[in-house]
C-alpha cells in the first residue's frame, strides 16, 4: 500500500464509519421514543388478541397463526427471526417453570417453512446457562428443529450493544444485538409466579435481553421494566399459558396450574394484562403493567381489544 492508497483508504473508512454512526443514531432515537423502526416485511401492529384453548401446543400454534392471518403476515422470505423464550432456570419442562420446548421447536419449524433464513433462540439465564440449556430441554428441541440456540451469558461485547432508553430511571443499557438486528422478534414468555413482581410474562421476560439488568433492582424494578417495554416492542408476543407454577417462582418447583391457553398479540401490555387476569391478578395491580400502559406502550384494558377466542 503506497501513501496515496493509504490516504484514500483512510478517507473512505472514516466516511463509512461516520455514515454507519448516523444510521445507528437514527434508529436509537426512534426506538427511544417508543416508535418502531419499521423495516420492509415487518408486519404492522395488530389490534387483535388471539386466545387459543387446547392441549396440543403444535395444533394450538397453527390455529393461532391462522387466526392472525397466517404466519406469512409476520415472516417473509429471508428474514432473520429471533425468539426469546424463558429458559432461565434449571428445571425440567414438566416442572412448568420454563417455556414449553415443544412450542418453541414447532414455531421454529413454521418460521423456516415460511422462508425464514435463520431462527435464533436466545436467553440470558440468571442461573448456570449450560445446565439450563440441557435441563429445560430447550437445546435439544431447538437444534432438532433446525434453529440456533445460545445464551447471552459471558458475552457482553459479543451479544450486547449500548442503547439509549431515555427513561426516568434508565439512561443507557446494554441491549441484545440479536434482537436489535432481527427482522422479526417474537417474545415467548411463560406465565408463572414470580416472587418479586408477583407474576412474570412478556414484559418481565424482556429483562433477559439486558446485560446490566442487576441495576434494575437497585433503582425501581417496575419502572425499569416499563421503560424497557417502551424501548423495544416485540413484533409478536406468544404467551405460553399452557401450564405454569403459581407459587415459588421464578425458580420453582412449585404448585402447577393448567390454563391450557396460548395468547397471541402484538400489543405486549395487552397480552400481559390478559395473562395477569388468567393468573388471577388485576392487571392494574401489577405495577410495571400499569406504568407501561401509562407510558403508552399498550392497552392494559385487554377487553377493549378485539379478542378472538379459538
Amino acid at each position, binding site marked *: 500500500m503506497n501513501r496515496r492508497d493509504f490516504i484514500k483508504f483512510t478517507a473512505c473508512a472514516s466516511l463509512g464509519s461516520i455514515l454507519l454512526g448516523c444510521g445507528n443514531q437514527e434508529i436509537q432515537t426512534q426506538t427511544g421514543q417508543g416508535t418502531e423502526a419499521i423495516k420492509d416485511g415487518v408486519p404492522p401492529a395488530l389490534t387483535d388478541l388471539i386466545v387459543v384453548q387446547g392441549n396440543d401446543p403444535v395444533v394450538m400454534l397453527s390455529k393461532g397463526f391462522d387466526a392472525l392471518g397466517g404466519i406469512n403476515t409476520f415472516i417473509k422470505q429471508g428474514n432473520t427471526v429471533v425468539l426469546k423464550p424463558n429458559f432461565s432456570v*434449571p428445571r425440567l419442562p414438566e416442572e412448568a417453570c420454563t417455556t414449553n420446548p415443544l412450542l418453541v421447536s414447532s414455531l421454529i419449524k413454521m418460521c423456516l417453512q415460511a422462508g425464514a433464513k435463520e431462527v435464533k433462540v436466545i436467553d440470558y439465564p*440468571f*442461573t*448456570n446457562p*449450560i*445446565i439450563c440449556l440441557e435441563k429445560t430441554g430447550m437445546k435439544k428441541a431447538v437444534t432438532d428443529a433446525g434453529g440456533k440456540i445460545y445464551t447471552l451469558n459471558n458475552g457482553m461485547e459479543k451479544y450486547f450493544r449500548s442503547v439509549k432508553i431515555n427513561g426516568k430511571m434508565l439512561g443507557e443499557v446494554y441491549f441484545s444485538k440479536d434482537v436489535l438486528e432481527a427482522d422479526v422478534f417474537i417474545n415467548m414468555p411463560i406465565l408463572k409466579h*414470580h*416472587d*418479586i413482581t408477583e407474576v412474570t410474562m412478556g414484559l418481565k421476560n424482556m429483562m433477559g435481553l439486558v446485560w446490566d439488568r*442487576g*441495576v434494575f*433492582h*437497585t*433503582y*425501581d*424494578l*417496575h419502572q425499569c421494566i416499563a421503560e424497557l417495554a417502551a424501548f423495544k416492542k416485540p413484533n409478536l408476543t406468544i404467551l405460553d399459558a399452557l401450564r405454569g407454577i403459581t407459587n*415459588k417462582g*421464578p*425458580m420453582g418447583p412449585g404448585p402447577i396450574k393448567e390454563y391450557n391457553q396460548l395468547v397471541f398479540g402484538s400489543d405486549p401490555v395487552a397480552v400481559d394484562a390478559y395473562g395477569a387476569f388468567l393468573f388471577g391478578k388485576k392487571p392494574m395491580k401489577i405495577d410495571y403493567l400499569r406504568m407501561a400502559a401509562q407510558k403508552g406502550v399498550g392497552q392494559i384494558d385487554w377487553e377493549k381489544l378485539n379478542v378472538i377466542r379459538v
Partner: protein
Amino acid sequence: MARLPLREHPIKVNYLLRKIRYNWLVFLLILLLVSNLPLLLTPFHLLTEEMTRLWQGKMPWILSGMLLTGILYFPRFWCIYICPTGLLLAAMARWRYFRLTIGENCVDCSTCEKVCQIQAMKLAERRASEDCMLCGRCWQACPTKTAKWRDTHSITQQRSDTPLAALSRRQLFAIGAAVVVGGFGGQLLKPATTVATIRPPGALAENNFLQQCSRCGRCVKVCPAECLFPMSLDTGLHTFLTPRVVPRKARCELCLSCQEVCPTGAIARIPLERVKMGIGELIRAKCLVWSEQKLCLLCREQCPVHAIEVDEQNRPYVNETACVGCGACENGCPLPEAAIIVRPISK
C-alpha cells in the same frame, strides 16, 4: 547435542543431594501425618493436578520446574531426589537381589558410567546403585558385553555393608532431626486462624476434609457451574490447592458432580437433603430492601431451595434450616459488595 553447563559438573550437587535425600523422604513421610501435601509430589497427583492447572489456563509451575531441571541438569532429577515414590522405590531397591552388574571381562573403559543418565552405575562397586531404573543403556553400550543382569552375589568385589549398616551414626541423627523438624514444620503449616472457606457440597468437616483431599483437582474440573476454585498459597500451605466455592464468581448448582468424581471421599456422597455448605448471612445495613426500601429481593429470586423468606413488610431474611449455602444469593446480589454472604458452618 551441546551439553548445557550445569550438566557438565553435576557430581558435587549430586553428592550433596544424594546425602540428604533419604532425610528428605523421612521428612515427607512425617509431613504426611499432618498434611497430605507430599502426595502432590508423586507422579499420579502431580500429573492430574498440573493437567487441571493447564485446563484452567494457569501455569503448571511444578511440572515446568521439573522439565526445566530435567533439561538443565539431568533427566529423572525429580524421580531421584524429590519424588516420594521414586525415593521409596529406591530405598527398597537397596535389597534388590538382581541388578545390572559388571562382570569379569571389564576393561574399565567407564562407558557404562557415561551412558547412565542418572549416574546409577558405579564402576568401582561393579554394579548399579539402588537408583537404577533398568533402562539397559549400559548393557547395550558395554564394548565387552560384560554389563549384565545378574544376581549380586556373583560380584567378586562384594560390598560389605547391608542397607542398615550403611547408615552412619551421623545419618541416623539426621533422620531423627528430620522427624522432629517434620513434625514441627507440619504444625507450623497450620495457620493460627482457620480461614472461612465454603467447601464443595458434601465436603467433610474442615479438618477431615484437609486430611482426605488429595488436591487432585477433579472436582474443579468437573464442576459445570465453574464455581470451584483451587485455593492459592495466601491462605497457607495446608489449604493450598484444595477446592473452595467462590459464590461471587459463580453459584453452586447443587448438581453434586464433584461428589461423584472425588477419589478420596473428601467430598462425601451424600444426598442433596443433607448438603450444608454454609449459611447465608444477610447484612441488613447494606441490603437494598432493608436500608433503602427498594424492591430488590434478587436473593429470593435466585435461591434454589427457597430459603429466603420475607416478613410482613416484604423484607428478606434467611431461613437457616432451609439454607444449603450454595451461594446463589451472594452471587445474585446486585450491590458491588454483596449484602448477603455465605458463611461456613463451624463443624
